[in-house]
């Protein structure tokens, strides 16, 4: 066995070989699935808890506050305490609610985000499924969450929830286009939809810099539309606490509310991961083509650290948005997408295709 934090491939192959040597093929696959499932679940929970903490700290610093600072050092265990509280809390029974859909909705939301995380490469070899249509899969799966939000709003039997859900439906369906098209811009440049190859293609420089201006425009559009897709401020119309109290999850309490809450943060993590992977090189260290010495020094930083660093940078930008801008109105939100982002995006794809055709990219 040859374990290295720079390349997990041989470590994974060693586990695979060990299981197949000692177990029948069916059980070996089953055990592998369980291991991956538990690892992702653990990662999911930890990142979710950390993001809630990070958001509270970031917004506190932007608002001249201290933020959580009582539970543990710098309030680090605050979210764990919150989570325990939410788990122990009573689930309020809603009269006249559609019980089946009402109970199903949080699970749909959380499963959608859970499925998307499977396709994301965390480091070299640390990759649950390496689809050859990875980008398409992530776009498809991440938009399933809207079903859960619509069901939550519909089944709550609350007008505020329904308004929030309707807004959210219109918003996510619209912005899904921009997310997809901005990713397609880079897919044209990379020539593949497979995440591992997209990352590998950025060995000599990130696509953000390789693709001239179109890649940069696509990155900005992706940031805007993915913020909208995850229902975060300034596009948090589905929640809109000053208008709709809490939007689609007004009637949810306890652990079901926690599911929505966790899913929101994990969706943010997923879109930030995709942004980091597609535009900023994923786990690939910062390389400049031709600078061998510089590239060699950058290689000393483990890929996982690069990945987490880039992802959290994107997350930080999204938090910065949220705590700076006021909220848009629903018609302005749709105007922004259909009248500005979508046409810009389509033209951008043409320009990118032209650049790739002429071989002008680096």
């Amino acid at each position: 066995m040859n374990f290295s934090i720079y390349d997990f491939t041989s470590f994974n192959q060693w586990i695979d070989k060990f299981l197949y040597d000692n177990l029948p093929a069916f059980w070996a696959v089953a055990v592998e699935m369980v291991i991956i499932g538990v690892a992702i679940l653990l990662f999911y929970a930890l990142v979710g808890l950390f993001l809630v903490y990070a958001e509270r700290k970031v917004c506190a610093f932007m608002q001249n506050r201290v933020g959580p600072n009582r539970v543990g050092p710098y309030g680090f265990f605050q979210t764990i305490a919150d989570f325990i509280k939410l788990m122990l809390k009573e689930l309020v029974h809603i009269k006249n609610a559609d019980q089946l859909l009402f109970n199903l909705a949080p699970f749909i939301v959380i499963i959608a985000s859970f499925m998307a995380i499977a396709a994301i490469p965390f480091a070299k070899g640390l990759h649950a499924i390496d689809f050859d249509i990875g980008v398409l899969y992530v776009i498809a799966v991440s938009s399933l969450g809207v079903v859960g939000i619509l069901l939550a709003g519909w089944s709550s039997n609350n007008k505020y929830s329904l308004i929030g859900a309707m807004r959210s439906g219109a918003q996510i369906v619209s912005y899904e286009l921009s997310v997809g098209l901005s990713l397609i811009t880079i897919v044209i440049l990379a020539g593949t939809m497979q995440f591992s190859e997209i990352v590998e293609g950025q060995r000599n420089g990130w696509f953000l810099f390789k693709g001239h201006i179109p890649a940069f425009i696509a990155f900005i559009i992706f940031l805007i539309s993915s913020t909208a897709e995850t229902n975060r401020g300034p596009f948090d119309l589905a929640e809109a606490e000053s208008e709709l109290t809490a939007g689609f999850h007004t009637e949810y309490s306890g652990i079901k509310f926690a599911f929505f809450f966790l899913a929101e943060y994990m969706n943010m993590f997923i879109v930030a991961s995709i942004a980091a992977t597609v535009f900023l090189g994923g786990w690939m260290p910062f390389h400049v083509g031709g600078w061998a010495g510089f590239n060699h020094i950058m290689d000393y930083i483990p890929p996982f650290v690069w990945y987490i660093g880039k992802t959290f940078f994107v997350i930080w930008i999204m938090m910065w948005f949220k705590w700076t801008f006021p909220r848009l109105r629903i018609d302005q939100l749709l105007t922004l997408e259909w009248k500005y982002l979508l046409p810009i995006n389509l033209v951008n794809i043409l320009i990118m295709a032209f650049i790739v055709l002429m071989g002008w990219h680096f």
Partner: protein
Amino acid sequence: MKEVINLPVKNVEEEEYHINMGPQHPSTHGVLRLVVSLQGEIVKSLKPHCGYIHRGIEKMCEKDTYPQIIHLTDRMDYLSAHINNHAVCLLVENALEVDVPERVKYIRTIVDELNRIASHQLWWCSFGMDMGGLTCYFYGLRDREKILDIFEESFGSRLLHSYYTPGGLMMDIHPNFQKNVKDFLKYFRRKIKDYDNILTGNIIMQERTKGVGILSKEDAISYGVTGPSGRASGFACDVRKHHPYGVYDKADFKEILGTEGDTFTRYMMRMHEMRESMKIIEQLIDNIPAGDYTAKMKAVLKLPAGEYYQRVEAARGELGVYCVSDGNKTPYRMKFRSPNFSNLSALDHMSRGVKIADLVAIGGSLDYVIPDIDR
């Protein structure tokens, strides 16, 4: 949610539905209940239901002596408590024809304006929050805290001061008062630029407020919308300018009038007004004359029989106090013309046909304080 409203059925089209905004709702800033009739997200009409925090202040006034009444007026518009006190004090002083010392007039004017700034700061906080920009809330509260600290040092209380008494003040100002106020002005001149940076100049905020919730000058006058909301529509209604009290006639300040009458103009009116208030304080703070902090008053105040009316410019508009006295130590009848009640009455007119998000913004720009509506 069960249907809990009793609107006349003939006004309701089939596709309309109602939501109750309030009494517990984040954007009504208190226990106001708006029954909003919606078509999709578009507001067709709305009906304010008041009375959730009605305490019968006007009735309570009838059994209280005049110095006691002042403590009740604090509780109406708690954000401009000093100005409310000022109205009753002026009424009693004018009725008894008391000569108030010049020092008292200066201090009252300065404190009123500080109170106005503090009130507008809190309005800015909550307006930002209504628009969805939560950071504004903390910026505003941070600066408001400085004024409250000054109040606490001089008057012993942060929100409900009851600092004015008929004939003067409860006590003299703290020796640090002038220095602290000047420090605050220096500080706030710098910080108000942050307000413009984070909210006024923001493209999302401007897009959401410009041309929304328009109130014409004629409507402003007929609904009796006063204060910054009325002036945004071009209605020159500043009591400080047109019927000066205190030492406003000695201070040089502009009555800023808007023309558009939309939410953004109402927003800008208050931003300008904060700057004008700072200008007034700057002119007066160094010129407070020496002298007594109260005139010599009788132990028991009895207003001569008759009717009296006094108005002042509170932070949200014109506050009128109407008093009928039968010569006793308690008034026969007290009536407060509270600015918020009149301003609220125009909300239905302004918000017809806008989106529900705009309704929240319009409500924020009217800056209503619910205890002042209900009294």
